[in-house]
Structure formats: C-alpha cells, structure tokens
C-alpha cells in the first residue's frame, strides 16, 4: 500500500477524533506508520468537526491537514445538506463512506461524481441498537475498513481494547462488526 489519507467529517460529540485515533492506533499496531490529526476549535457539541489520518509504510513528514484524501468518511447524515466541503479534494477512484439511510445511488446523485466509490451504512441505527446512543464513530471505522480494506477487523478490535474502558470494548467491537457487514459499496 502506498500513502493512504482519510478525512473524517462529523459533529462535536460523535467521536470523530476518537475514530481517527482508533484508525491510527490499528494501523500502527499493524506495523504501519500512521498519524491521526484532530482539528481543534472552540469545541461545541453539535458543531462540525474534522479529523484526518495518514497511513504509510514509510515515515510521514507532513504535518499539514490532508488536502486530497483517498477516503472521506461522513459520520453525520445531516452534513449531506452541504456536500461541497465533504467532497472537496476527494481523489478520483477514492471512497466516500456515509452514515445514511439513503442508498449509495441517492448519495451519488447528491455528489454528482461517477469517478468515486460510494459506501453507505445506517450507522445511527446500528449504534442506537447496540450502544443505545447515537455515537457512530466505531461504526464508521467498521464501514471504512470494510469499504477500503486498509486494515483488518482484528487490528481495529485491538485498537478498541487499547483505547476504550473495558465495559465499552465488547459493544463497540460488536458494532464495528455489524457496520463492517452491513456497509454497501457501489
């Protein structure tokens, strides 16, 4: 694998920074060099949040935000009302992974791009079923790795064990597996 770069879009409280952190942790545990890059503002629950990952075989020198991601993950379906910042810079052949009840075809209509792969999963429903809360970050990590195959389920489960308090490990691993299974890529 050459350099793989990810941009996460969500809203404060959904755990986007943690999702990027889990992804980097799983990558590092799998022997990659990886970064997770949060952006910090005056944090407010509900405001749009962005985070980034870089994953490579080589050491990564860059420190600036990802401009041309290989994958964009959209953790909040309401962000689709303004698709422009979500799709910005997404490489041709890249992945757009969205938490939505819509079909991949409907999402493609919104973005009007035929040169990308689109993956959809209803992560809000899955996390309400399993966690009883709309915290979709781990589900979106599951959807990301199912769509892109950049990391294994096992490595992500290991990262959850590493990062989460023990009572939250099992339900989140289950949620990741569900999202992994139910994601639809087109």
């Amino acid at each position: 694998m050459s350099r793989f770069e990810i941009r996460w879009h969500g809203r404060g409280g959904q755990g986007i920074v943690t999702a990027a952190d889990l992804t980097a942790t799983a990558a590092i545990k799998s022997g990659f060099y990886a970064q997770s890059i949060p952006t910090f503002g005056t944090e407010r629950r509900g405001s749009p949040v962005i985070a980034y990952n870089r994953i490579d075989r080589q050491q990564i020198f860059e420190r600036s935000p990802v401009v041309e991601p290989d994958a964009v993950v959209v953790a909040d379906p309401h962000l689709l009302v303004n698709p422009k910042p979500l799709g910005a810079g997404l490489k041709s052949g890249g992945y757009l992974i969205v938490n939505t009840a819509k079909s991949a075809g409907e999402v493609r209509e919104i973005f009007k791009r035929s040169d990308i792969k689109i993956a959809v999963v209803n992560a809000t429903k899955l996390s309400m079923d399993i966690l009883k809360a709309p915290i979709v970050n781990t589900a979106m990590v599951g959807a990301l790795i199912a769509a892109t195959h950049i990391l294994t389920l096992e490595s992500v489960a290991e990262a959850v064990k590493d990062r989460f308090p023990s009572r939250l490990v099992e339900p989140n691993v289950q949620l990741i597996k569900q999202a992994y299974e139910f994601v639809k890529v087109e």
Partner: protein
Amino acid sequence: MGKVLPLGGNYAVAYAVKACKPEVITAYPISPQTTIVERLSEFVANGELDAEFLHVESEHSALSVAIGAAAAGARSYSATCSQGLALMNELLYIMAYVRLPMALTIVARALSAPINIWNDHSDFMSVNDSGWIMMMSSSNQEAYDEILLAYRIAEDPRVLLPVITAMDGYIQSHVVEPVEIVDDEEALSFAPKRRSWVTLNPDKPVTMGPVGDPNWYFEFKRQLWEAMKGSRAVFDEAVAEFAKKFGRSYSAIETYRLDDAEVAIVGMGSFMGTIKAYVDRARKDGIKVGALRVKLFRPFPAEDVAKALSNVKLVGVMDRALVPGSPTGGFLHSDVACSIKQAGLDVRTLGYIAGLGGRLLTMDNVRQMVDVLLKYKDSKEVPKEPIFIGVRE
C-alpha cells in the same frame, strides 16, 4: 529495544518523564499542555511512578516549587505554555542563575492578546534569554527522546542548567504517531540521577539566591555564559551516546538535501516535516532547494548553521513568532543572519513570519516561500522586512 506505542506528543512526553523518575512534579493545567501532567498524575496515582505530585495554584508557584525541590536535590519536572510560561517568567531566570537543573516542557502556543489557544512559537521565543538550554522537537518520538536528553544534560556537573524541551501545540501534542518507548532502567542508565549540584542541607548549610550586589552580580552572569557555551559539548556527547544506545541520532541542526542547494528554508519545529516533504517534491521538478531545522536553540549552533548554509545563494528563515520592531521581525532569522555574518560568509537571508496563532500552514505556503527565494536568488537586493505568509492584508 523498547516497544512502539501510538501516542500523541503529550502522552509521549509523559511516558518519557515517567521513565526518568522525577521525585517532584508540579502541575498547573493549560491547553494544550494539560494532558502531560494529567497522564503523569495517573502514573503517580496508580503507583507506576513514585513522585510527589503537587497541584499548585499557578504556574508561578509551579516553578517556585520546582526550584525549591531542585534546591533540595530532587529531580523535578513541570510543563506549561503561553500565558502559563509568561506567569513563570521571573522564576525562569532565578532557576537558571541559581544553577538548578530540571526539565520543563513547553507545548508551544500563541501569547495573548487576542486570546488564542493555538500553536505558534511566541511563548518559546519569549524566554530565549532566560539562561535555559532550549530545544524544540519535530516529531513525537523526538519529543519523547528530548526528555531523556534534558535530564542527562541538565544534571551534568559541567552544565547545571535547566532545560526546556518544546513541541508544537496540537500539531504534535494531540497528533497520534508511533513512538518507541524505552524501559525505565534503560532511560535511567542514559540519564542517571547524578545529584551533582549544590543542595540545601542542614549539615552543610549554604545560601541560595541571596542578594548579588554590584560587586558580585556580574560574575554570576559571566559564569552562566560559560556554562551555556560549555553545554554544547555535553549536548553533542549526549546525542552521540543516545544514538549508540537507542539507535536514533540527533544533532543541534538537521539538514535536508542542502549539499547542492541554491536556496534553503530554515525553521524550527514540526512544520519542518512538511517543508522536507515539499523539498522532495520540488527536487523532482529540478528546483535545487534544501532545508535546515534548528533543534538546539540555546546555545545557538551558530557555526553549524553557517557551515551548513555556506554554499547556498539565498536563505529564507521562517519565524513562527513576531518580534515587532526588530531588524528582521524574528528571533530565529536574527540569529541565523548573525551566524552567517560572524562566519564571514556572503550568503543573503530573508525572513518569513508564518503560522501565528494557529493559522493553517500548508504545502502551498511552502511553495510560496520557495517561490520568493527563486525570485530573489540572483538579485542584489532582497526584502529586508519579513514576508508575512498566509495573512490577510
């Protein structure tokens, strides 16, 4: 060797401090430093680290207590930034001139006003005359390693000066990267507790920090000048030993593709990583550009900097802190220009002020900086005023 963990810069530093086993940690939280002392408090609470952890009421007290602890012979640690460092200011000079060793981490952040919690180098640069040895890392691994270097150098009987290790707020402190951590025994064998300085002892009474009247004050200053100068050889020894022991090599400056460079960018901190990546890209287009990162800022490696830049036509120095009214606008540019002048070289410099208060710096900003160098590399006159990168005019 040790194990590789995914760590943000703050946690990396906390692990390194734990491995060096300070006896006294003084803590006052401030973003983006807070999670260093937070993690250290967890290490103390869960028994992994046997230290006095003091929640003090201000940064002024944090350093006052550290001075007292070091005077009593303890290995001490604290971390701060921005307004917290400003509040520590008077104690910084006292610690240095009483010649007490410690490690203090600055997680570099802008200074008010306006209030701004984001990253630049204003706080770090504001204490550049305080008599502390000062270094700044560019990766979380290096931030970790600098703690080990700091204790080894600070407590060396030939030095006995406190050491500031700095990293970029958020850009390092909160970015997770792989960091190899070493066993505590290995860290301690590299940076052993030397108890090499004069301490307060009822059986052998000494006075610390008394009045230095005009008959004595000047000699203290003179002695610190010598100690600071002499610390460079100890730094060089320490990094050589570090490379032998842990396999990672550092030096006072890091040069990147400078050998045949016509133009070069000089700077400090983590953004030099992006600049290195840009250099690789520009080299593919045939642009002869190189980079130089200053790691050790005090004592300033003037001869190394001049030598490394001796064949370059034009140097652009990036400051991430503004010195209003100074000839160059930046401490780093002034020191680099002075180093070149002292070496008698005919190498011109110009300056950039960039990324203040967390203003985003990108690969495109590096391209702008290099474009300026290419424009002026063969001309007689170069801009004297700093070029402000990414600001709205």
